[in-house]
C-alpha cells in the first residue's frame, strides 16, 4: 500500500465528484475520478487504487453489474453511494460483493468514518489480529474468549461464529445473507429468524442495554455492523 491511499471515485454527477474530491483531499486521501462504469473499470487496471467509491446510479451500467465486475477483477474495498429510492439495489450490491454503503445525502464526517473502517479492515485482514477491543468489549481471537468489562462471558459456538464474522468486518456492514451463508450455509440464506434469535442472545450477553446497543448495531433491512472506537487505529 502506498503511503497516501488512492481512492477511485466512480460518480456521474460532476458537483458531487468535486465536493467529494475536495473533502477527501483535505482528509489526506488522493483521488482519481471516473464519470461512468466503463471508464471506472478501465482505471481500476491502469491506476491500481486502494479503494473504490461507487455511485449506484450510473448512466452506462447497472451499479450491481459494476460491483460484480469489480469483485471479479480485485478484492479491494468498495463503498457504495445510494439514493433512498435504491434501497433494494443497495442490498443487492452488498450481496454482490460491495463492502459498505452510504445513503445520499451524507455528511463528509460519515464518509470519512466509513473509509477509515474499510481501510482498517484491510489492514486487519493482513495482520493477524489477536485481540479485538471496542468499548468494554474484548474478544481474544486466539483463545476464543469474550470479555465484557474484563469479565468473561460464555457464548455458544454459533454465537461465536457470528461475532467472529462481525469482528472481521468491524466498522463495516455485514448483510443478513452473508451472515446466514457463512454460519448456516447457503440453504439457509432466507431464514432471517435464525439471525434474529442468535443476534438477540448475543446482544443480551454483550450489551449493557440490548435495546440500545453500543457494539452490535442493527442496520434495519440490511444487516449488522460491529461498532469500532474512533480512536482504534491499526
Amino acid at each position: 500500500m502506498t503511503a497516501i491511499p488512492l481512492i477511485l471515485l466512480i460518480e456521474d454527477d460532476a458537483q458531487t465528484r468535486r465536493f467529494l474530491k475536495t473533502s477527501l483531499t483535505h482528509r489526506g486521501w488522493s483521488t482519481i475520478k471516473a464519470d461512468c462504469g466503463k471508464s471506472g473499470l478501465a482505471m481500476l487496471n491502469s491506476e491500481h487504487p486502494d479503494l473504490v467509491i461507487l455511485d449506484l446510479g450510473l448512466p452506462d451500467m447497472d451499479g450491481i453489474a459494476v460491483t460484480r465486475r469489480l469483485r471479479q477483477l480485485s478484492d479491494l474495498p468498495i463503498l457504495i453511494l445510494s439514493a433512498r429510492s435504491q434501497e433494494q439495489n443497495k442490498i443487492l450490491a452488498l450481496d454482490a460483493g460491495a463492502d459498505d454503503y452510504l445513503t445520499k445525502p451524507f455528511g463528509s464526517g460519515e464518509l470519512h468514518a466509513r473509509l477509515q473502517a474499510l481501510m482498517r479492515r484491510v489492514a486487519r485482514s493482513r495482520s493477524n489480529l489477536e485481540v479485538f477491543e471496542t468499548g468494554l468489549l474484548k474478544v481474544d481471537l486466539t483463545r476464543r474468549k469474550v470479555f465484557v468489562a474484563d469479565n468473561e462471558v460464555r457464548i455458544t459456538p454459533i454465537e461465536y461464529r457470528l461475532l467472529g464474522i462481525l469482528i472481521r468486518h468491524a466498522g463495516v456492514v455485514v448483510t443478513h445473507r452473508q451472515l446466514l451463508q457463512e454460519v448456516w450455509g447457503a440453504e439457509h440464506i432466507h431464514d432471517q429468524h435464525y439471525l434474529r434469535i442468535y443476534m438477540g442472545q448475543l446482544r443480551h450477553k454483550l450489551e449493557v442495554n440490548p435495546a440500545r446497543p453500543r457494539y452490535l448495531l442493527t442496520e434495519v433491512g440490511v444487516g449488522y455492523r460491529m461498532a469500532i472506537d474512533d480512536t482504534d487505529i491499526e
Partner: protein
Amino acid sequence: MKLSGVFGSSPNLARNERFIGHAWGLAAPFICTLIDWPLRDLLGPASILMTYLLGVFLVASRYGRSASIVASLLSAPTFAFYFARPIFSFAISDLENIVGLAVMIIVANVTGSLLEKSRLQAELAKQRESHTNALYRLSRDLSAAQDHNAVARIAAEHIDNEFGTDSVLLIADTENGLQIQTNQVLPVSLHNIDLALAQGAFEKGEVRQQHPLSYYPLHGSSAVQGVLTILQTEALVRQSPEVNTFCHLIAQTLERFQLAAQAREANLQAETEALRNALLSSISHDLRTPLTRIIGAVGTAIENDAGLSAMERQELNQSVLEEAQRMSELTGKILDMARLSSGQIILHRSWNAIEEIVGSALNRLDKHLQDRPVRTLLPDSLPLLWIDAVLMEQVLVNLIENAVKYTSPGSPIDIEAIALPKRFRLSITDYGPGIAKHQQTRIFEKFYRGATETQQNGVGLGLALCKAIVEAHGGLIQADNRAGKGAEFSIELPLHAPPLLAESEALGSVA
C-alpha cells in the same frame, strides 16, 4: 312450483292425457248403452237421450272438447241403433229423436269448448302467479347482493329454478371486457360458449342464438351491463318475455353497482384534490423556510467574505448545514408519503425482533435525543414479528421524534412492548403536556398539526405515515394520554405463528 309443469314441457304426459280422454270418449256411449238397455221399456227415448247427454257432458268436463266430440259422435249412432225406432237399425223415424241427437251434439261441443277455455285461463293465472313469485324472489335476492360474484350466483340459481336450464352470467368489466365471475363453475352444457358471439350480443345489444345457446344482452338504462348465456330448451322459446324480465332485473342490479362505484370514485377524486392542495400549500411553506435561511446565510457569507470573523463564518455554515438536513428529512417524508399513498404499500416482510428495530431507531435519533433518558421495557420473551422492518423503523423514528419535539429538553421517554394473546403492543410515552381529547384522532390525518401556527417543523406527515404503515400491517395506531405522564402513542400488530428453528445448538460456551 314450476312453470314447465303447467305448460307441458313434457309432451309425453299431454299425449297420454289426450289418449285417455279419447278412450273415455269412446267408452262413454257404450257404458250408457249398457246401463240403459235393461231400462229401455221403462224409459222413453228422451230420457235415454239425457243419459247419453250426461255421459258426453262428463267426458267434456274432464277431458275437453275433442274427447267430448268423439263421445257425442259415437253416442248418436249407438242411440239410433239400440233405442230409436226402428231398433237395431241406424235409421231414425221420430223427428223428436233427431232433434234430441242434434241438441246433444251441440251441447257437447259448447260445454267442451267452454270448459277448456276456463281450464286454460286457470292455468294461465297459475302460471302468471308463479312467474310473479319467481320475479319477486329474484329481485329480493338481487337487492341483497353485494358484488358481481353474488349476482352471478343468484342469476344462475334462479334461472335453474324457474326455467330448469343452465346459464352463466358474463359481466362487463371496464378493463377486461366480458368476464365470467371467478366463483362461477361453468356447467358442462355451456362449455362450448362462444365468447365472440357473447361480445356481439353485448356490443349490438341484441339477442344472439347459436344452437343450443342463446346470448341475451343485459340492458341497463344507459348501457349494456353484460350478457346472460342460457342453454335453450323447447319450453324456453315460449318464455322469452319472462327471460327478458329476468335479464332486466339483473341488468338493473349491475347498474346499481356501477353507479355506486362511480360515486366512490368521484368522492375519492374530490379527496385527492383537497389533499393535493393541502400538500402544495404545506410543502411550499415548509420548503421555503429552510431555503430562505440557506440562501440568506450563503449570500451573507459570499458578500461579506473578507469582513467575517472565523466564528461568524462557522455559524453561517452551521445554519446552512442544519437547514439542508431539515429539507432532506422533509423531502424524505414527502417521498415516503407519495410512495405510500400512490396505491398499495408493498411490504417486504420478514421475521424481525422489535428490540433491534427500537435499537436502530434510537441509534438514528442519537443526535435528537442527546442526553434524554430513554427507558426501554422490552421483555426477553417477546416473539418475532412478521413485518417490514424498514417501514416499522420509520414508524418508531417518527413517533420518538414527535415525543422529542413536543416535550421539554431532558424529559424522559418510555418505550414499552408487551405480547398479548394474538397481538403485540408497543407504546411510546412522553412526559409532556399530552394531547387534547379532540385531537387524538385528527393528528393522524395528513397535514394536521397540533397547534396551528407553530415553530415546529414538518408538514404534519409523520403521523399520517405511521398510520398508513401500521394499517398496511393489519395493525392499529392510537394516541392517548397517560395519567401522571404525557402523551402515549401505541401500536398494535397482529402476531403470526412464529417460525421454528430447524437445528438446535448444543449449549455451552466456546472453550
